[in-house]
Protein backbone atom coordinates (compact mmCIF):
# COMPACT_ATOMS: atom_id res chain seq x y z
CA UNK A 1 0.00 0.00 0.00
CA UNK A 2 2.77 2.43 0.90
CA UNK A 3 4.38 1.60 -2.43
CA UNK A 4 1.18 2.35 -4.31
CA UNK A 5 0.88 5.62 -2.40
CA UNK A 6 4.38 6.55 -3.51
CA UNK A 7 3.49 5.89 -7.17
CA UNK A 8 0.34 8.01 -6.86
CA UNK A 9 2.29 10.84 -5.21
CA UNK A 10 4.82 10.77 -8.03
CA UNK A 11 1.84 11.00 -10.41
CA UNK A 12 0.46 14.05 -8.60
CA UNK A 13 3.88 15.66 -8.76
CA UNK A 14 3.63 15.23 -12.55
CA UNK A 15 0.18 16.90 -12.54
CA UNK A 16 -1.74 13.63 -13.00
CA UNK A 17 -5.26 14.49 -11.90
CA UNK A 18 -6.41 10.86 -11.87
CA UNK A 19 -3.75 9.97 -9.30
CA UNK A 20 -4.86 12.90 -7.20
CA UNK A 21 -8.47 11.81 -7.50
CA UNK A 22 -7.51 8.35 -6.23
CA UNK A 23 -5.75 9.68 -3.12
CA UNK A 24 -8.57 12.16 -2.57
CA UNK A 25 -11.12 9.34 -2.47
CA UNK A 26 -8.89 7.22 -0.20
CA UNK A 27 -8.18 9.95 2.33
CA UNK A 28 -11.09 12.38 2.21
CA UNK A 29 -13.27 10.85 4.92
CA UNK A 30 -10.42 10.19 7.33
CA UNK A 31 -9.11 13.72 6.96
CA UNK A 32 -12.63 15.10 7.36
CA UNK A 33 -13.12 13.30 10.68
CA UNK A 34 -9.61 14.27 11.74
CA UNK A 35 -10.42 17.94 11.15
CA UNK A 36 -13.95 17.65 12.57
CA UNK A 37 -12.46 16.27 15.80
CA UNK A 38 -10.32 19.36 16.03
CA UNK A 39 -12.77 22.10 15.03
CA UNK A 40 -16.01 20.42 16.22
CA UNK A 41 -18.00 21.92 13.36
CA UNK A 42 -19.06 19.95 10.28
CA UNK A 43 -19.25 22.84 7.80
CA UNK A 44 -15.91 24.26 8.87
CA UNK A 45 -14.34 20.80 8.71
CA UNK A 46 -15.67 20.43 5.16
CA UNK A 47 -14.08 23.75 4.13
CA UNK A 48 -10.73 22.99 5.75
CA UNK A 49 -10.64 19.48 4.25
CA UNK A 50 -11.27 20.85 0.75
CA UNK A 51 -8.73 23.65 1.20
CA UNK A 52 -6.14 21.12 2.39
CA UNK A 53 -6.46 19.04 -0.78
CA UNK A 54 -6.40 22.19 -2.90
CA UNK A 55 -3.13 23.28 -1.25
CA UNK A 56 -1.58 19.88 -1.95
CA UNK A 57 -2.50 20.31 -5.63
CA UNK A 58 -1.24 23.89 -5.78
CA UNK A 59 2.12 22.90 -4.30
CA UNK A 60 2.34 19.54 -6.01
CA UNK A 61 5.78 20.30 -7.41
CA UNK A 62 7.30 20.22 -3.93
CA UNK A 63 5.74 16.87 -2.95
CA UNK A 64 8.21 14.28 -1.65
CA UNK A 65 6.69 10.96 -2.81
CA UNK A 66 8.64 8.87 -0.29
CA UNK A 67 7.02 10.73 2.62
CA UNK A 68 3.66 9.81 4.13
CA UNK A 69 0.71 11.50 2.40
CA UNK A 70 -1.38 11.48 5.55
CA UNK A 71 1.36 13.26 7.51
CA UNK A 72 1.37 15.91 4.80
CA UNK A 73 -2.36 16.54 4.78
CA UNK A 74 -2.52 16.31 8.58
CA UNK A 75 0.12 19.03 8.79
CA UNK A 76 -1.55 21.31 6.25
CA UNK A 77 -4.98 20.89 7.84
CA UNK A 78 -3.55 21.46 11.32
CA UNK A 79 -2.05 24.72 10.16
CA UNK A 80 -5.38 25.72 8.63
CA UNK A 81 -7.07 24.91 11.96
CA UNK A 82 -4.56 27.09 13.81
CA UNK A 83 -5.22 29.92 11.34
CA UNK A 84 -8.91 29.54 12.01
CA UNK A 85 -8.53 29.50 15.79
CA UNK A 86 -6.29 32.53 15.75
CA UNK A 87 -9.02 34.25 13.81
CA UNK A 88 -11.70 33.17 16.25
CA UNK A 89 -9.66 33.64 19.43
CA UNK A 90 -11.47 36.71 20.63
CA UNK A 91 -14.88 35.17 20.12
CA UNK A 92 -13.87 31.95 21.80
CA UNK A 93 -12.61 33.78 24.85
CA UNK A 94 -16.11 35.12 25.36
CA UNK A 95 -17.86 31.87 24.58
CA UNK A 96 -15.85 30.06 27.22
CA UNK A 97 -17.48 32.20 29.86
CA UNK A 98 -20.97 31.11 28.87
CA UNK A 99 -22.50 28.03 30.51
CA UNK A 100 -23.06 25.11 28.13
CA UNK A 101 -26.64 24.51 27.07
CA UNK A 102 -28.30 21.98 24.84
CA UNK A 103 -26.92 18.84 26.45
CA UNK A 104 -29.47 16.03 26.62
CA UNK A 105 -30.36 14.52 29.96
CA UNK A 106 -31.21 10.84 29.95
CA UNK A 107 -32.36 8.56 32.80
CA UNK A 108 -29.34 9.30 34.93
CA UNK A 109 -28.36 12.87 34.24
CA UNK A 110 -25.47 12.71 36.65
CA UNK A 111 -23.76 9.74 34.98
CA UNK A 112 -24.47 10.86 31.43
CA UNK A 113 -23.11 14.28 32.18
CA UNK A 114 -19.96 12.94 33.70
CA UNK A 115 -19.36 10.64 30.75
CA UNK A 116 -19.85 13.40 28.15
CA UNK A 117 -17.86 15.84 30.21
CA UNK A 118 -14.96 13.43 30.46
CA UNK A 119 -15.14 12.75 26.74
CA UNK A 120 -15.17 16.47 25.97
CA UNK A 121 -12.23 17.06 28.29
CA UNK A 122 -10.30 14.29 26.56
CA UNK A 123 -11.01 15.98 23.24
CA UNK A 124 -9.85 19.32 24.64
CA UNK A 125 -6.60 17.92 26.05
CA UNK A 126 -5.88 15.99 22.82
CA UNK A 127 -6.40 19.19 20.81
CA UNK A 128 -4.61 21.60 23.13
CA UNK A 129 -1.92 19.65 24.94
CA UNK A 130 -0.64 16.89 22.66
CA UNK A 131 2.17 17.57 20.21
CA UNK A 132 1.11 17.25 16.52
CA UNK A 133 2.67 13.86 15.86
CA UNK A 134 1.33 12.37 19.06
CA UNK A 135 -2.15 13.77 18.38
CA UNK A 136 -2.23 12.44 14.80
CA UNK A 137 -1.44 8.96 16.05
CA UNK A 138 -3.93 9.13 18.90
CA UNK A 139 -6.80 10.28 16.64
CA UNK A 140 -6.05 7.65 13.99
CA UNK A 141 -6.11 5.02 16.70
CA UNK A 142 -9.16 6.13 18.68
CA UNK A 143 -11.39 7.79 16.06
CA UNK A 144 -10.47 5.87 12.93
CA UNK A 145 -10.01 2.65 14.92
CA UNK A 146 -6.80 1.79 13.11
CA UNK A 147 -4.38 -0.78 14.51
CA UNK A 148 -0.86 0.23 15.48
CA UNK A 149 0.76 -1.48 12.45
CA UNK A 150 -1.77 0.25 10.15
CA UNK A 151 -0.94 3.62 11.66
CA UNK A 152 2.77 2.88 11.41
CA UNK A 153 2.43 2.19 7.67
CA UNK A 154 0.18 5.19 7.06
CA UNK A 155 2.62 7.59 8.72
CA UNK A 156 5.84 5.87 7.69
CA UNK A 157 6.87 5.16 11.30
CA UNK A 158 7.87 2.06 13.21
CA UNK A 159 5.20 0.22 15.20
CA UNK A 160 7.32 0.84 18.27
CA UNK A 161 7.12 4.60 17.79
CA UNK A 162 3.34 4.41 17.39
CA UNK A 163 3.04 2.42 20.64
CA UNK A 164 5.27 4.86 22.49
CA UNK A 165 3.32 7.86 21.23
CA UNK A 166 -0.02 6.38 22.27
CA UNK A 167 1.38 5.62 25.70
CA UNK A 168 2.70 9.15 25.92
CA UNK A 169 -0.73 10.53 24.94
CA UNK A 170 -2.40 8.54 27.71
CA UNK A 171 0.14 9.83 30.22
CA UNK A 172 -0.52 13.44 29.26
CA UNK A 173 -4.27 12.83 29.31
CA UNK A 174 -4.18 11.26 32.77
CA UNK A 175 -2.16 14.13 34.13
CA UNK A 176 -4.50 16.74 32.68
CA UNK A 177 -7.73 14.99 33.59
CA UNK A 178 -7.08 14.60 37.32
CA UNK A 179 -10.07 16.76 38.24
CA UNK A 180 -12.47 14.70 36.16
CA UNK A 181 -11.56 11.25 37.43
Amino acid sequence: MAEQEQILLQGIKNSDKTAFNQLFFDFHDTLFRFVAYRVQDGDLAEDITQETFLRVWRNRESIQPEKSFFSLIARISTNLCYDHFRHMEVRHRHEDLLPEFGKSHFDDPEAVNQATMLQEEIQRVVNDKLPDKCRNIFILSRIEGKSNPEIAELLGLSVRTVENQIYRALKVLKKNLKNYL
Partner: protein
Amino acid sequence: MKKLDDIQKLIWERSAQVELPSPPDKEAVWMRLSQHMDISDMDKDINQDQQRLAPPAQRFLSKFKPRITYAVALGLALIFALPIAYDSLTTETFMTQTTDFRTLELPDGSTIRLNAGSQIKYKKDFNTDHRSLAMTGEAYFNVQNGNTPFVIQTNQGQVTVLGTSFNVRSREDGFEVGVNEGIVKVSNDSKSVILHKGQMIKVDSKFDEKNLQNISYTNYPDWMHEKLVCEQTPLSEVCEEIERTFGISFEFANPSFSDITVTGVIDAKDLNTVLSTISLLTQHEFKFNGDTCTIF
Protein backbone atom coordinates in the same frame (compact mmCIF):
# COMPACT_ATOMS: atom_id res chain seq x y z
CA MET B 1 2.03 -2.17 24.52
CA LYS B 2 3.06 -1.03 27.95
CA LYS B 3 0.82 -1.79 30.87
CA LEU B 4 -2.01 0.69 31.47
CA ASP B 5 -3.55 1.49 34.83
CA ASP B 6 -7.33 1.70 35.33
CA ILE B 7 -7.52 5.41 34.75
CA GLN B 8 -5.64 5.15 31.48
CA LYS B 9 -7.92 2.29 30.42
CA LEU B 10 -10.95 4.45 31.14
CA ILE B 11 -9.49 7.30 29.11
CA TRP B 12 -8.64 4.85 26.35
CA GLU B 13 -12.25 3.66 26.14
CA ARG B 14 -13.89 7.05 26.51
CA SER B 15 -11.67 8.72 23.95
CA ALA B 16 -13.19 6.63 21.15
CA GLN B 17 -16.78 7.58 22.04
CA VAL B 18 -16.96 10.76 20.05
CA GLU B 19 -19.87 11.75 17.87
CA LEU B 20 -18.53 13.41 14.75
CA PRO B 21 -20.55 14.86 11.87
CA SER B 22 -20.64 12.49 8.90
CA PRO B 23 -18.43 13.44 5.96
CA PRO B 24 -20.04 15.20 2.97
CA ASP B 25 -20.63 13.43 -0.35
CA LYS B 26 -17.17 12.83 -1.84
CA GLU B 27 -18.33 13.09 -5.46
CA ALA B 28 -19.76 16.57 -4.89
CA VAL B 29 -16.67 17.68 -2.95
CA TRP B 30 -14.43 16.35 -5.72
CA MET B 31 -16.39 18.29 -8.34
CA ARG B 32 -15.98 21.53 -6.41
CA LEU B 33 -12.33 20.79 -5.64
CA SER B 34 -11.61 19.91 -9.25
CA GLN B 35 -12.93 23.28 -10.40
CA HIS B 36 -10.83 25.10 -7.82
CA MET B 37 -7.81 23.14 -9.03
CA ASP B 38 -8.44 24.21 -12.62
CA ILE B 39 -8.88 27.82 -11.60
CA SER B 40 -5.68 27.76 -9.56
CA ASP B 41 -3.78 26.14 -12.46
CA MET B 42 -5.08 28.83 -14.79
CA ASP B 43 -3.98 31.60 -12.40
CA LYS B 44 -0.58 29.97 -12.12
CA ASP B 45 -0.11 29.85 -15.90
CA ILE B 46 -0.98 33.51 -16.17
CA ASN B 47 1.48 34.42 -13.38
CA GLN B 48 4.25 32.39 -14.99
CA ASP B 49 3.63 34.09 -18.31
CA GLN B 50 3.91 37.46 -16.65
CA GLN B 51 7.10 36.50 -14.86
CA ARG B 52 8.62 35.23 -18.08
CA LEU B 53 7.71 38.45 -19.86
CA ALA B 54 8.71 40.91 -17.16
CA PRO B 55 12.55 40.89 -17.27
CA PRO B 56 12.94 41.30 -21.09
CA ALA B 57 10.45 44.16 -21.00
CA GLN B 58 12.62 46.00 -18.48
CA ARG B 59 15.71 45.46 -20.58
CA PHE B 60 13.84 46.76 -23.57
CA LEU B 61 12.95 49.94 -21.70
CA SER B 62 16.50 50.69 -20.60
CA LYS B 63 17.86 50.26 -24.14
CA PHE B 64 15.26 52.21 -26.06
CA LYS B 65 14.24 54.90 -23.65
CA PRO B 66 14.27 57.75 -26.18
CA ARG B 67 11.78 55.93 -28.31
CA ILE B 68 9.44 55.10 -25.52
CA THR B 69 6.83 57.60 -26.67
CA TYR B 70 6.56 55.86 -30.04
CA ALA B 71 6.28 52.54 -28.32
CA VAL B 72 3.49 53.84 -26.11
CA ALA B 73 1.60 55.30 -29.07
CA LEU B 74 1.97 52.11 -31.06
CA GLY B 75 0.95 50.09 -28.04
CA LEU B 76 -2.17 52.12 -27.50
CA ALA B 77 -3.15 51.80 -31.16
CA LEU B 78 -2.68 48.06 -30.95
CA ILE B 79 -4.66 47.82 -27.75
CA PHE B 80 -7.66 49.41 -29.41
CA ALA B 81 -7.37 47.61 -32.74
CA LEU B 82 -6.41 44.16 -31.52
CA PRO B 83 -9.54 42.99 -29.73
CA ILE B 84 -11.65 43.47 -32.86
CA ALA B 85 -9.23 41.67 -35.16
CA TYR B 86 -8.46 39.09 -32.48
CA ASP B 87 -12.09 38.35 -31.84
CA SER B 88 -12.97 37.71 -35.46
CA LEU B 89 -9.89 35.56 -36.00
CA THR B 90 -10.20 33.39 -32.91
CA THR B 91 -13.92 32.92 -32.47
CA GLU B 92 -16.18 30.24 -33.95
CA THR B 93 -19.85 31.14 -34.22
CA PHE B 94 -22.77 28.87 -35.00
CA MET B 95 -26.32 30.06 -35.22
CA THR B 96 -29.74 28.79 -36.23
CA GLN B 97 -32.45 30.91 -37.85
CA THR B 98 -36.07 30.42 -36.94
CA THR B 99 -37.41 27.02 -38.09
CA ASP B 100 -33.81 25.80 -38.21
CA PHE B 101 -32.35 23.05 -36.00
CA ARG B 102 -28.74 22.06 -35.99
CA THR B 103 -26.43 19.59 -34.28
CA LEU B 104 -22.79 20.44 -33.92
CA GLU B 105 -19.81 18.68 -32.46
CA LEU B 106 -17.23 20.54 -30.41
CA PRO B 107 -13.47 19.88 -30.51
CA ASP B 108 -13.71 17.87 -27.25
CA GLY B 109 -16.33 15.51 -28.72
CA SER B 110 -19.27 17.03 -26.86
CA THR B 111 -22.38 17.57 -28.96
CA ILE B 112 -24.84 20.42 -28.94
CA ARG B 113 -28.27 20.39 -30.49
CA LEU B 114 -29.30 23.96 -31.17
CA ASN B 115 -32.98 24.84 -31.07
CA ALA B 116 -34.35 27.35 -33.58
CA GLY B 117 -33.19 30.96 -33.25
CA SER B 118 -30.14 30.23 -31.08
CA GLN B 119 -26.45 31.00 -31.17
CA ILE B 120 -23.24 29.44 -29.83
CA LYS B 121 -19.85 31.15 -29.78
CA TYR B 122 -16.52 29.80 -28.61
CA LYS B 123 -12.82 30.51 -29.00
CA LYS B 124 -10.84 28.43 -31.45
CA ASP B 125 -8.56 27.23 -28.65
CA PHE B 126 -11.57 25.50 -27.05
CA ASN B 127 -10.49 22.29 -25.29
CA THR B 128 -6.83 23.32 -24.95
CA ASP B 129 -6.93 24.81 -21.48
CA HIS B 130 -10.58 25.73 -21.20
CA ARG B 131 -13.98 24.61 -22.38
CA SER B 132 -16.09 27.72 -22.20
CA LEU B 133 -18.62 29.03 -24.66
CA ALA B 134 -21.30 31.68 -24.84
CA MET B 135 -24.88 31.05 -25.90
CA THR B 136 -28.20 32.68 -26.50
CA GLY B 137 -31.42 30.85 -27.22
CA GLU B 138 -31.87 27.20 -26.32
CA ALA B 139 -29.67 24.14 -26.72
CA TYR B 140 -29.33 20.59 -25.47
CA PHE B 141 -25.81 19.64 -24.40
CA ASN B 142 -24.22 16.23 -24.25
CA VAL B 143 -20.89 16.93 -22.62
CA GLN B 144 -17.97 14.51 -22.72
CA ASN B 145 -15.86 14.07 -19.60
CA GLY B 146 -12.78 16.24 -19.75
CA ASN B 147 -9.94 17.68 -17.74
CA THR B 148 -11.33 21.20 -17.66
CA PRO B 149 -14.84 22.16 -16.60
CA PHE B 150 -17.33 22.85 -19.38
CA VAL B 151 -18.65 26.38 -18.83
CA ILE B 152 -21.62 27.96 -20.60
CA GLN B 153 -22.01 31.72 -20.35
CA THR B 154 -25.44 33.22 -20.84
CA ASN B 155 -26.32 36.88 -20.42
CA GLN B 156 -27.72 36.21 -16.97
CA GLY B 157 -25.23 33.77 -15.48
CA GLN B 158 -23.26 30.63 -16.09
CA VAL B 159 -23.56 26.86 -16.03
CA THR B 160 -20.57 24.68 -15.11
CA VAL B 161 -20.33 20.92 -15.68
CA LEU B 162 -17.84 18.11 -15.95
CA GLY B 163 -19.63 15.59 -18.17
CA THR B 164 -23.35 15.13 -18.51
CA SER B 165 -26.52 15.88 -20.55
CA PHE B 166 -28.72 18.85 -19.90
CA ASN B 167 -30.75 21.61 -21.50
CA VAL B 168 -30.21 25.37 -21.28
CA ARG B 169 -32.96 27.76 -22.34
CA SER B 170 -31.82 31.38 -22.36
CA ARG B 171 -34.51 33.96 -22.90
CA GLU B 172 -34.68 37.72 -22.40
CA ASP B 173 -35.92 37.66 -18.81
CA GLY B 174 -33.69 34.85 -17.55
CA PHE B 175 -32.58 31.33 -18.29
CA GLU B 176 -33.59 27.82 -17.40
CA VAL B 177 -31.45 24.71 -16.91
CA GLY B 178 -32.66 21.11 -16.63
CA VAL B 179 -30.40 18.11 -16.09
CA ASN B 180 -30.94 14.66 -17.65
CA GLU B 181 -27.64 13.09 -16.53
CA GLY B 182 -24.87 14.02 -14.09
CA ILE B 183 -24.35 17.12 -11.97
CA VAL B 184 -24.37 20.74 -13.12
CA LYS B 185 -23.51 23.95 -11.30
CA VAL B 186 -25.55 27.03 -12.17
CA SER B 187 -24.40 30.43 -11.02
CA ASN B 188 -24.90 34.12 -11.57
CA ASP B 189 -23.08 37.07 -9.99
CA SER B 190 -24.53 36.52 -6.56
CA LYS B 191 -25.33 32.82 -6.11
CA SER B 192 -24.63 29.30 -7.23
CA VAL B 193 -26.78 26.17 -7.05
CA ILE B 194 -25.89 22.53 -7.76
CA LEU B 195 -28.39 20.62 -9.91
CA HIS B 196 -28.62 16.85 -9.91
CA LYS B 197 -30.17 14.47 -12.42
CA GLY B 198 -33.88 15.17 -12.90
CA GLN B 199 -33.82 18.70 -11.50
CA MET B 200 -34.38 22.04 -13.16
CA ILE B 201 -34.18 25.68 -12.11
CA LYS B 202 -35.08 29.04 -13.56
CA VAL B 203 -32.47 31.75 -13.14
CA ASP B 204 -34.00 35.21 -13.02
CA SER B 205 -34.37 37.87 -10.36
CA LYS B 206 -35.79 35.21 -8.03
CA PHE B 207 -32.87 32.78 -8.50
CA ASP B 208 -32.73 30.69 -5.34
CA GLU B 209 -32.03 27.12 -4.26
CA LYS B 210 -35.60 26.97 -2.97
CA ASN B 211 -36.91 27.18 -6.53
CA LEU B 212 -35.31 23.88 -7.57
CA GLN B 213 -37.95 21.75 -9.30
CA ASN B 214 -38.07 18.15 -10.33
CA ILE B 215 -38.50 17.62 -14.05
CA SER B 216 -42.09 16.45 -14.18
CA TYR B 217 -42.23 14.88 -17.63
CA THR B 218 -40.17 12.13 -19.21
CA ASN B 219 -39.52 13.71 -22.60
CA TYR B 220 -37.39 16.57 -21.28
CA PRO B 221 -36.48 18.85 -22.99
CA ASP B 222 -39.74 19.11 -24.92
CA TRP B 223 -38.35 20.50 -28.16
CA MET B 224 -35.93 17.59 -28.60
CA HIS B 225 -38.96 15.30 -28.74
CA GLU B 226 -41.01 17.65 -30.91
CA LYS B 227 -43.28 18.43 -28.01
CA LEU B 228 -44.24 21.67 -26.40
CA VAL B 229 -44.78 21.30 -22.67
CA CYS B 230 -46.80 24.05 -21.02
CA GLU B 231 -47.50 24.43 -17.36
CA GLN B 232 -49.53 27.54 -16.64
CA THR B 233 -47.53 29.10 -19.48
CA PRO B 234 -48.80 32.45 -20.77
CA LEU B 235 -50.16 32.21 -24.34
CA SER B 236 -47.73 34.94 -25.41
CA GLU B 237 -44.79 32.74 -24.41
CA VAL B 238 -46.27 29.67 -26.11
CA CYS B 239 -46.75 31.69 -29.31
CA GLU B 240 -43.13 32.89 -29.18
CA GLU B 241 -41.93 29.28 -29.10
CA ILE B 242 -44.19 28.41 -32.06
CA GLU B 243 -42.93 31.46 -33.97
CA ARG B 244 -39.37 30.30 -33.44
CA THR B 245 -40.10 26.71 -34.41
CA PHE B 246 -42.32 27.26 -37.46
CA GLY B 247 -41.29 30.72 -38.67
CA ILE B 248 -44.69 32.33 -38.47
CA SER B 249 -45.89 35.31 -36.45
CA PHE B 250 -48.89 35.73 -34.22
CA GLU B 251 -51.28 38.57 -33.70
CA PHE B 252 -53.80 38.83 -30.90
CA ALA B 253 -57.19 40.28 -31.82
CA ASN B 254 -57.39 41.35 -28.18
CA PRO B 255 -54.16 42.15 -26.25
CA SER B 256 -55.55 40.51 -23.09
CA PHE B 257 -55.26 37.12 -24.84
CA SER B 258 -51.56 37.11 -24.11
CA ASP B 259 -52.30 36.50 -20.42
CA ILE B 260 -54.34 33.35 -21.04
CA THR B 261 -52.40 30.44 -19.54
CA VAL B 262 -51.97 27.10 -21.28
CA THR B 263 -51.33 23.75 -19.60
CA GLY B 264 -50.68 20.52 -21.45
CA VAL B 265 -48.29 18.58 -23.67
CA ILE B 266 -48.71 19.71 -27.27
CA ASP B 267 -47.51 17.57 -30.15
CA ALA B 268 -45.25 19.91 -32.12
CA LYS B 269 -44.53 17.82 -35.23
CA ASP B 270 -46.56 20.01 -37.55
CA LEU B 271 -48.06 23.43 -37.32
CA ASN B 272 -51.68 22.39 -37.91
CA THR B 273 -51.67 19.97 -35.00
CA VAL B 274 -50.12 22.60 -32.74
CA LEU B 275 -52.64 25.24 -33.69
CA SER B 276 -55.67 23.01 -33.37
CA THR B 277 -54.49 21.81 -29.95
CA ILE B 278 -53.98 25.35 -28.75
CA SER B 279 -57.30 26.37 -30.18
CA LEU B 280 -58.89 23.56 -28.17
CA LEU B 281 -57.04 24.43 -24.97
CA THR B 282 -57.71 28.16 -25.11
CA GLN B 283 -61.17 28.04 -26.74
CA HIS B 284 -60.09 30.61 -29.33
CA GLU B 285 -60.16 30.55 -33.15
CA PHE B 286 -57.12 30.95 -35.43
CA LYS B 287 -57.09 32.52 -38.84
CA PHE B 288 -54.14 32.47 -41.23
CA ASN B 289 -53.17 35.30 -43.50
CA GLY B 290 -49.88 34.44 -45.25
CA ASP B 291 -47.35 33.88 -42.48
CA THR B 292 -49.37 35.72 -39.89
CA CYS B 293 -51.76 33.91 -37.63
CA THR B 294 -54.43 35.92 -35.87
CA ILE B 295 -56.10 34.68 -32.70
CA PHE B 296 -59.74 35.66 -32.15
